[in-house]
């Protein structure tokens, strides 16, 4: 446990160093941060957009925005990871607002390769299809809260700051989302 804590502290320290270097214009440091956080941003974006091409484009835009604004990033209680998810979330909102795209998880049928890959990674494709369809039927904020809490493992406090809600309101939001999901799956 002690070793684990030391490892986490060192990792956090390394990340902090990388962030500071990126803030001073070191693109290599930003590249390392990209490698660290891109998989999570990709997953979150894919589950929100349901389209691989859009996801790839949006992930690119997210990190480009992050690079352009990293100089303004300050750790005010929210982690760098949470900051990136906020950018991703806003990028997705902007994208669909400008493109007027109405695609949701329920219409996730355009990328058979991606579908196949997820199928291989999930234990049951039917179960996965049902789950994503039910998540897509939730409100966007409920989707975000649920995915950020149980897929991306962010804590309630961080999610609350991202969604600009109180921690209790966020917990209620997540609880309500799970209840809706349970009802749909029953």
């Amino acid at each position, binding site marked *: 446990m002690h070793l684990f804590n030391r490892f986490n502290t060192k990792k956090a320290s390394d990340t902090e160093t990388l962030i500071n270097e990126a803030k001073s214009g070191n693109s290599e440091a930003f*590249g390392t941060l*990209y490698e660290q956080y891109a998989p999570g941003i990709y*997953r979150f974006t894919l589950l929100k957009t349901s389209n691989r091409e859009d996801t790839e484009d949006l992930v690119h835009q997210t990190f*480009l925005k992050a690079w352009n604004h990293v100089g303004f990033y300050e750790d005010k209680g929210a982690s760098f990871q949470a900051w990136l998810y906020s950018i991703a979330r806003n990028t997705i909102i902007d994208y669909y607002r400008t493109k007027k795209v109405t695609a949701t998880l329920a219409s996730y049928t355009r990328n058979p390769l991606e579908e196949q890959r997820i199928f291989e990674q999930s234990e049951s494709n039917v179960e996965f299809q049902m*789950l994503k369809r039910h998540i897509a039927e939730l409100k966007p904020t409920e989707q975000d809260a649920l*995915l950020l809490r149980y897929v991306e493992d962010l804590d309630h406090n961080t999610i609350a700051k991202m969604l600009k809600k109180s921690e209790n309101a966020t917990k209620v939001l997540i609880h309500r989302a799970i209840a809706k999901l349970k009802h749909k799956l029953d």
Partner: protein
Amino acid sequence: MVENRENMKDILGKLKRLKHIEPDEAYLKHSKKRLFAHINPSYRVGISVFTLASSVGICGLLIFFALNDSTPPAPTPLASLDNVALTQEFDEINLASKIAEVKERDSNNRAIDRAIQNLAYTGKPVSQDITSPEETNDKIDQLLNELL
């Protein structure tokens, strides 16, 4: 209550399985390169210089062709197929052969004259072949020298 908790665990378990969704390595590498193309100034400058150099080169070639009548140069004609040169060469050969013919006739005429004169003075017939003017001339000259 217990059943409810089990259902909850089941749903959370299903949600956590979504963590297995990950981009493939090839995409991540490509995406990182694409990102660096935007954010790395030296990379961007390199691309810009290359683009500028290519543009200048292409423009230079276009201007070159435009100034040179914009048509590709005609293939160099073979000397043996040049009608004018051939005609000139033929005329020159023809003239040279005529001059040679005149010279030969002139030489023959002179040889005949000398032989007739020799015959008139000495009464000896001349049996030399007048078709070889140099040889004939030499012999005539020799005979003349003897006479003189």
